[in-house]
């Protein structure tokens, strides 16, 4: 053990040197390198640990001979830290239903399964994960896919159940989550491969045709025997045919769909140019005279496919992030059978069964409490900022979180039948009915097609009169040179560069079209709880003797109730001990230092003491009117202090809203919380708000958004809860802020991975800048096209010019797109 500890040591020392001003060598955790708290120091042991998690991972790595991990790891990576473990039993993975749905059989009786894995942050983690067979021999192979954050495990079910494999992963600090929607992932992978294949074929064709075109062009100037020219033309035709009709069939399909649905689309002018160019050149090859444009056509297809591929890759990154988040949702529950709870998949629950919900866990069903009492955080479902006290006989809903003590719930409805399920259903319906966004480039392309058709008809007509033998050639040349290569690349490239930059700044767009949509100002509708506010209570006022604070802190030291948490955050810990602590609905009673302390609501303290002093009642009323929650503190039977709590407005809310207002956005607030609380929050924002409504149900929110949109407004919904999800789906763009519910993330078009509203302002600014880049690109490509049109109409365009103009225009557009700074905070707006 000590020899192995030596390996861990130098790494830890390096971390220490990073902490400036640390002269005394403080003991470092042998696993994670963080300082070891004084309380955990063990003077006689060599390896010291900061927590039990680190100790057990260290022991596992040593017994499996995996100390190489400490060498692979980058000691400067701050994300390492101590391992986060869920401590779950993962028993649900052994259910036959799970095995049926999530595993595939392999040779020799082994099974394969895929997991999303949390906590992978560096290459050492990948190394460790792939050496899982050494930790648990039942595992035959483990392969990690960094692109999808998925670990593929092959294991022998006769040696160990899957739950044991999952527990081994969890004990190393990598919490596994079964992937769902595997069919979707397979579909996606198929699509990726097909596009890559097209790209490869188009690239190979473009390269080879270009070589032959080079020979043809130089032959034109230097002289070339006719038989060689014919050979090169036929050769080009042979290569270009699969490129156009296989790799390029994507554009024809898109063009046809655009015609059928009568929506303008970029694929339409592209198909027109490709078909005209290909058939014109093919006929000229057959005839043995006239121009051929095979090189330009292949380059065009290749470049357009590059743009699409990049866009798809970046879009998939955001999709992956949302997949990962939704995989983290609890899909298990503790089913109580004959008195003992057992972990089962939530889908196995039935109406009438009893489940246990422990503190900190999410309720997975709708039902009635049959045992215990607790406080529930319903903010994600209703927008209510203050926790709801529940006891036997009260209804609870799926999607709420249990805060203080375990309760048992008799199931009344599960899955799609729960309130949450019905809400999600309405989200899906709304999303399906939403009209697709017509993107700027496609709108431009719509006009573009008409203009090109008009000009080519004109060219054909004029040349028919001047010189009928060249009329067709010149028209084909026109169609080829105006084929909007740069126009088709301008948007995908600008968008994929912007998506990348945005992801870097903590903003994930689910599609490029939402960037375009967000670039135009409109009405932003904010949810209150968790969006404009922190979503948790904080101590805002303390009327009374400061010396009472440590006593209250001691009483509330261990509770998980939001009020207790707020006390824990604001008052520093002391060494006072509390005894005989007893929780009641609405308050708590305990003895500290021999004094009898009561902390709780007005009604609780009144019930305990019989009456309340007048000063405290007027203060409490004033706080309540201002949207704050008063909590009374009584010492030895006398009310001696009054604390007030509120869900405070986010620190960056006012500045972010001011920035948004400068961009031309207007605001509304729609909350499920009480009107007086909403008014208090709006008052703190210091920006004009058109409308602030409290007490709005999810259905009312949806209706409000629909009314706004019907009034011709561009509506953006920013929220964090399930109750906002339907409204988000109905808005032009739904934005989910960091920390939102999974249901809300799946409904949102944009979500942020950093707390605060700053990212929302940044998203709007970045979208505006991206739009400017797109416009510049479109302008540039239209300018090149104009030049081409001029040359073609004048009959001066030969294939060489076409071959030079096309890449030139594309390169300038690409440069403009990639050099632009869009979603960085340093950029000047």
């Amino acid at each position, binding site marked *: 053990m000590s020899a192995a500890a030596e390996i861990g040591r130098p790494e830890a020392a390096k971390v220490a040197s990073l902490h400036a001003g640390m002269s005394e060598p403080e003991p470092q955790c042998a696993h994670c390198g963080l300082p070891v708290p004084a309380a955990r120091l063990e003077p006689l042991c060599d390896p010291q640990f900061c927590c039990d998690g680190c100790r057990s991972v260290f022991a596992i790595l040593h017994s*499996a*001979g995996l100390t190489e991990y400490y060498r692979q790891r980058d000691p400067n990576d701050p994300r390492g830290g101590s391992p986060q473990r869920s401590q779950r039993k993962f028993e649900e993975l052994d259910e036959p239903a799970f095995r049926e749905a999530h595993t595939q059989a392999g040779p020799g009786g082994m099974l394969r399964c895929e997991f999303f894995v949390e906590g992978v942050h560096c290459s050492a983690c990948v190394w460790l994960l792939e050496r899982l067979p050494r930790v648990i021999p039942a595992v035959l192979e483990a392969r990690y896919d*960094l692109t999808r954050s998925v670990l593929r495990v092959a294991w022998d079910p006769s040696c160990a159940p899957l739950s044991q494999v999952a527990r081994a992963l969890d004990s190393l600090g990598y919490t596994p989550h079964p992937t769902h929607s595997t069919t979707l992932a397979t579909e996606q992978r198929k699509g990726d491969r097909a596009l890559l294949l097209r790209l490869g074929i188009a690239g190979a064709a473009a390269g080879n045709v270009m070589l032959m075109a080079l020979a043809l062009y130089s032959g034109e100037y230097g002289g070339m025997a006719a038989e060689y020219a014919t050979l*090169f033309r036929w050769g080009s035709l042979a290569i270009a045919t699969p490129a156009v009709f296989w790799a390029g069939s994507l554009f024809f399909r898109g063009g046809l769909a655009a015609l059928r649905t009568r929506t303008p689309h970029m694929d339409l002018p592209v198909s027109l140019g490709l078909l005209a160019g290909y058939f014109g050149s093919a006929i000229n090859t057959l005839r043995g005279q006239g121009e051929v444009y095979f090189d330009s056509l292949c380059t065009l297809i290749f470049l357009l496919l590059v743009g699409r591929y990049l866009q798809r890759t970046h879009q998939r990154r955001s999709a992956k992030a949302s997949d990962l988040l939704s995989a983290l949702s609890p899909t298990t529950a503790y089913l109580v059978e004959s008195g003992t709870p057992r972990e089962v998949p939530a889908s196995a629950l039935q109406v009438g069964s009893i489940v246990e919900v422990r503190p900190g866990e999410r309720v997975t069903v709708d039902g009635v409490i049959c045992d215990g009492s607790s406080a529930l955080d319903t903010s994600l479902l209703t927008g209510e900022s203050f926790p709801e006290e529940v006891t036997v006989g009260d209804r609870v809903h799926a999607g709420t979180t249990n805060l203080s003590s375990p309760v048992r719930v008799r199931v009344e409805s599960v899955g799609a039948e729960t309130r949450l399920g019905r809400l999600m259903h309405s989200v899906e319906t709304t999303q399906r009915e939403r009209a697709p966004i017509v993107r700027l480039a496609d709108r431009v392309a719509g006009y573009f097609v008409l203009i090109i058709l008009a000009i080519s008809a004109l060219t054909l007509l004029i040349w028919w009169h001047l010189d009928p033998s060249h009329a067709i050639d010149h028209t084909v040349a026109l169609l080829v040179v105006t084929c909007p290569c740069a126009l088709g690349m301008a948007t995908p490239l600008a968008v994929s560069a912007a998506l990348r930059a945005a992801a870097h700044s903590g903003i994930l767009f689910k599609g490029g079209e939402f960037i375009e949509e967000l670039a135009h100002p409109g009405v932003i509708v904010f949810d209150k709880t968790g969006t404009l506010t922190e979503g948790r209570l904080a101590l805002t006022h303390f009327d009374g003797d400061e010396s009472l604070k440590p006593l209250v802190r001691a009483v509330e030291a261990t509770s998980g109730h939001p009020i207790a948490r707020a006390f824990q955050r604001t008052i520093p810990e002391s060494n006072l001990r509390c005894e005989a602590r007893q929780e009641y609905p609405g308050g708590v009673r305990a003895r500290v230092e021999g004094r009898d302390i009561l902390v709780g609501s007005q009604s609780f303290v009144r019930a305990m003491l019989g009456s309340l002093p007048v000063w405290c009642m007027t203060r409490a009323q004033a706080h309540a009117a201002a949207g704050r929650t008063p909590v009374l503190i009584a010492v030895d039977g006398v009310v001696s202090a009054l604390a007030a709590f509120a869900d405070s407005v986010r620190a960056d809310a006012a500045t972010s809203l001011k920035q948004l207002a400068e961009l031309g956005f207007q605001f509304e607030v729609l909350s499920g919380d009480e009107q007086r609380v909403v008014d208090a929050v709006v008052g703190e924002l210091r920006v004009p708000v058109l409308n602030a409504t409290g007490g709005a149900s999810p259905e009312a929110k949806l209706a409000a958004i629909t009314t706004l949109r019907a009034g011709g407004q561009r509506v953006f919904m920013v929220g964090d809860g399930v109750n906002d999800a339907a409204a988000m789906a109905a808005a032009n763009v739904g934005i989910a802020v960091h920390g939102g519910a999974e249901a809300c993330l799946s409904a949102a078009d944009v979500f942020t991975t950093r707390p605060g509203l700053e990212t929302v302002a940044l998203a709007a600014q970045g979208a505006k800048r991206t739009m400017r880049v797109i416009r510049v690109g479109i302008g540039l490509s239209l300018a090149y096209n104009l030049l081409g049109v001029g040359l073609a109409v004048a009959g001066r365009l030969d294939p060489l010019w076409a071959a030079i103009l096309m890449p030139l225009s594309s390169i300038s557009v690409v440069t403009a797109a990639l050099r632009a700074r869009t979603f960085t905070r340093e950029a000047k707006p």
Partner: protein
Amino acid sequence: MSIIFLILPVTLFLSAGAVAAFAWATRSGQFDDLETPAIRLLHEDRPEDAATRDDTPRKPR
């Protein structure tokens, strides 16, 4: 110069081979994950590491 009549088809044949190889690689999923293999390359077990464990056979070098 007439050698070109032979060379051109040969070139095309070779390119077709390259394209076929690319198609095979794509279809068998070799381009699905372009990030992890780059990291996996650096993960070679070192002899010091092998020395700390006794149950696993030493990798031939």
